[in-house]
């Protein structure tokens, strides 16, 4: 897979994102797959920030640590980011008279870097344009370096200023100027992109948060309550931005407890409602999780992960919320934890989450993380015909309602523990959604016999849920493999990696790399994390020479759940807990190192033992 990367750096608020977004859009329209990754501090303005685009003519969903082009909007970028360039890379900067320190000069000659000074202020003065247009000038110059058609960028900028004629003209002049700029000290400079694949032109450019928001709308969510906390805030903003189109009730609550309670009240009344938060915000919601378990109120909460403890790193990423989601809150009860992995399932899993919640009358926690929430994906248009809405054992027909008894609501003897549910306002026998231990109609009942029956009712749902949750997704060498084919696999797997969430897409890119293409590397990706299915994993482990856990947390939390569920210990782990996602080249080298040592081991040890066999 041929890939190039371009990184724009500067102060937060300087226009990094707008340059990144226009180039991403232009490249996508020209037939490229773009993956956008943002790094920024928890500040409104100032602070060093970046927007990186990784580009290919094949599907690409990962970021490299080294880039082909660095665009520095201020001198901090020249100070901080020089070591991120690849051999032969290009540095584009706007700082007049910048003198590189000696170690950078050495680097420039070693890596054969080309440094271009773009005199943005001179050009602005000449055109009589304000500083804000420097972004357009730079964008146009980058566009010419990429050898792309000037009309694409003109039409993109034109769409933005269609109604402001004077501004439009000035913007067009900036594009012409920027596009035709040539550094007098350099020969013509260009960055070679592979030939485009026009299929990408019809794709969407979308962040994981936007995908999730559209998924929520698609799932029939009619009320959203939230309290701002990165990285869940982009979802709140996106849903609020859609308010006048969807006519959804959007409430910015006074705290996370309120948001969780409002959503629970709405679900009790029968309206699909959603809330999202992060880390300690989810701690505040956890008492409501326990309440919903007791009153068997279906609810869905999004937990957007970032590094903790406490407020941790607000604008960085982690997968450290798995155990929190699976274990937090008082009492023993059935819950479901699922994780989105990219912009595709951020959309697809929202209806699934609500269906599971209503089918089992439980809370479903949907994990995402800062990487998914804010990364920019090139996304195939969604299938808007496909969503199924399943409201489980909800009774709405008047003919059925009139035969209901109060004691149907929490009937402990019902199969699978899932009893009939009907909504306030239905002409039927009434019940109490009772937070204390209760009998079948919701009256408080502290007797030992009743307590045992109701506890068993609520926890019996776990088995039913576990039996229907889909198997983890297996891919070998970057291609999906069907569950049924696993049994027939004759070959041994060289390396079996296990991961979840945003790790998955990076691992897919690694498996499709030129270095590892065609190798028997398997990746088992968990979307449904609790209850946890391990039967497929246990079978695969028997076929694998080596297994490794890949997670973005310190403890290897999925590994802990796996061990808890089936006793399988995975001692070899690729873990990352520095707030950064897995980068493509970094993960590639970790995986390659393991593959090399696997073949060495094989040569040495004829009596090979399978790694991590269950003890």
């Amino acid at each position, binding site marked *: 897979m041929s890939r190039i990367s371009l990184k724009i750096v500067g102060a937060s608020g300087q226009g990094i994102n707008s340059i990144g977004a226009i180039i991403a859009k232009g490249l996508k329209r020209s037939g490229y797959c773009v993956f956008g990754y943002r790094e920024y501090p928890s500040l409104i303005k100032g602070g060093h920030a970046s927007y990186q685009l990784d580009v290919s003519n094949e599907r690409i969903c990962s970021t490299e640590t080294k880039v082909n082009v660095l665009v520095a909007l201020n001198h901090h970028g020249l100070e901080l980011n020089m070591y991120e360039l690849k051999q032969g890379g290009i540095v584009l900067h706007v700082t007049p008279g910048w003198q590189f320190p000696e170690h950078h000069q050495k680097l420039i000659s070693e890596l054969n870097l080309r440094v271009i000074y773009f005199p943005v202020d001179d050009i602005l003065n000449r055109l009589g344009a304000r500083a804000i247009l420097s972004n357009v000038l730079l964008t146009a110059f980058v566009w010419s370096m990429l050898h792309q058609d000037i009309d694409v960028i003109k039409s993109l900028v034109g769409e933005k200023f269609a109604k402001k004629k004077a501004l439009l003209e000035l913007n067009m002049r900036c594009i012409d100027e920027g596009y035709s700029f040539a550094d007098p000290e350099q020969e013509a400079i260009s960055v070679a992109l592979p030939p485009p694949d026009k299929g990408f032109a019809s794709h969407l450019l979308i962040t994981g948060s936007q995908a999730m928001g559209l998924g929520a709308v698609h799932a029939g969510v009619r009320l959203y309550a939230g309290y701002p906390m990165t990285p869940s805030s982009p979802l709140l903003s996106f849903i609020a931005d859609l308010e006048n189109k969807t006519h959804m009730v959007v409430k910015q609550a006074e705290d996370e407890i309120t948001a969780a309670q409002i959503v629970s009240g709405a679900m009790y009344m029968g309206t699909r409602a959603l809330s999202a938060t992060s880390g300690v915000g989810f701690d505040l919601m956890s008492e409501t999780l326990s309440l919903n378990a007791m009153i068997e109120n279906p609810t869905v909460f999004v937990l957007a992960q970032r590094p903790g403890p406490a407020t941790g790193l607000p604008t960085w990423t982690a997968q450290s919320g798995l155990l929190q989601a699976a274990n937090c809150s008082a009492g023993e009860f059935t819950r479901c934890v699922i994780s989105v992995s990219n912009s595709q399932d951020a959309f697809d899993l929202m209806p699934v989450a609500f269906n599971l919640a209503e089918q089992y009358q439980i809370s479903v926690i949907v994990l995402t993380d800062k990487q998914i929430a804010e990364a920019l994906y090139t996304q195939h248009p969604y299938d808007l015909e496909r969503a199924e809405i399943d409201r489980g054992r909800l009774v709405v027909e008047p003919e059925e309602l009139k035969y209901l008894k109060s004691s149907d609501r929490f009937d402990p003897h019902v199969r699978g523990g899932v009893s009939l549910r009907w909504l306030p*306002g*239905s002409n039927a026998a009434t019940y109490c959604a009772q937070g204390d231990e209760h009998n079948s109609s*919701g009256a408080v009942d502290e007797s030992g016999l009743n307590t045992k029956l109701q506890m068993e009712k609520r926890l019996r749902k776990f088995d039913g849920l576990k039996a229907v949750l889909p198997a983890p997704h297996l891919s070998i060498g970057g291609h999906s493999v069907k569950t049924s084919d696993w049994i027939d696999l004759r070959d041994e797997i060289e390396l079996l990696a296990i991961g979840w969430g945003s790790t998955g897409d990076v691992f897919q890119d690694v498996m499709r790399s030129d270095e590892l293409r065609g190798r028997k590397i398997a990746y088992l990706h968990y979307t449904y994390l609790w209850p946890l299915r391990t039967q497929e994993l246990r079978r695969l482990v028997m076929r694998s020479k080596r297994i490794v856990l890949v997670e973005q947390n310190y403890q290897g939390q999925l590994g802990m759940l796996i061990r808890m569920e089936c006793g399988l210990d995975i001692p070899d782990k690729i873990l990352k807990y520095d707030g950064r996602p897995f980068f493509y080249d970094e993960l590639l080298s970790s995986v390659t190192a393991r593959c090399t040592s696997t073949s060495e081991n094989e040569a040495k040890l004829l009596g090979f033992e399978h790694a991590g066999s269950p003890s």
Partner: protein
Amino acid sequence: MNIPLQSRLPALSEYYSETKCIWCDGCGNYGIWTAVKYALVELNLHPWQVCLCYDVGCNGNGSDKIEGYRFHGLHGRVIPFAAGAKLANMKVPVIAFGGDGATFSEGIGHLIHGVRSNYPITFVLHNNTNFGLTTGQASSLTPQGQPMNTSPNGIPEHTLASMDLVFSLKPTFVARGFSGDISN
């Protein structure tokens, strides 16, 4: 949800529950409980047409002593839950109940923002100036200096001026009654 035309008027007996009351003799909750049932009948509402949300405390022990679609939740949180229920279906009248502990101690933020948000719900505050169910600790409405379960030398904190606070929030309607006076 369409509420069909009623031919039969609601009767007080429809709100009768088999569950026995467990409040102390002479408790004000009996009066509030009875008054609520009368009010619902007067409003021409059958139990299936109303949503009654109870906070934790002695008031919450009324959640299974009446008919209607009821909810009994967590301490201090009844206002946002009731608001969510109301916003989800504006056709169903929602009444929330809470004590002074839930409303002015644990959940005071919810009270403030609930009034500020002007949710179209009715809230009934059961004020007995202490935590009754947990056997008599001070709430923020307990008179300062009064010895209580956890404060044998009298509680040191100022008593919260509950109504001054509520009126400062520009509520749409506030009335105060005595639980022994059912007809009012």
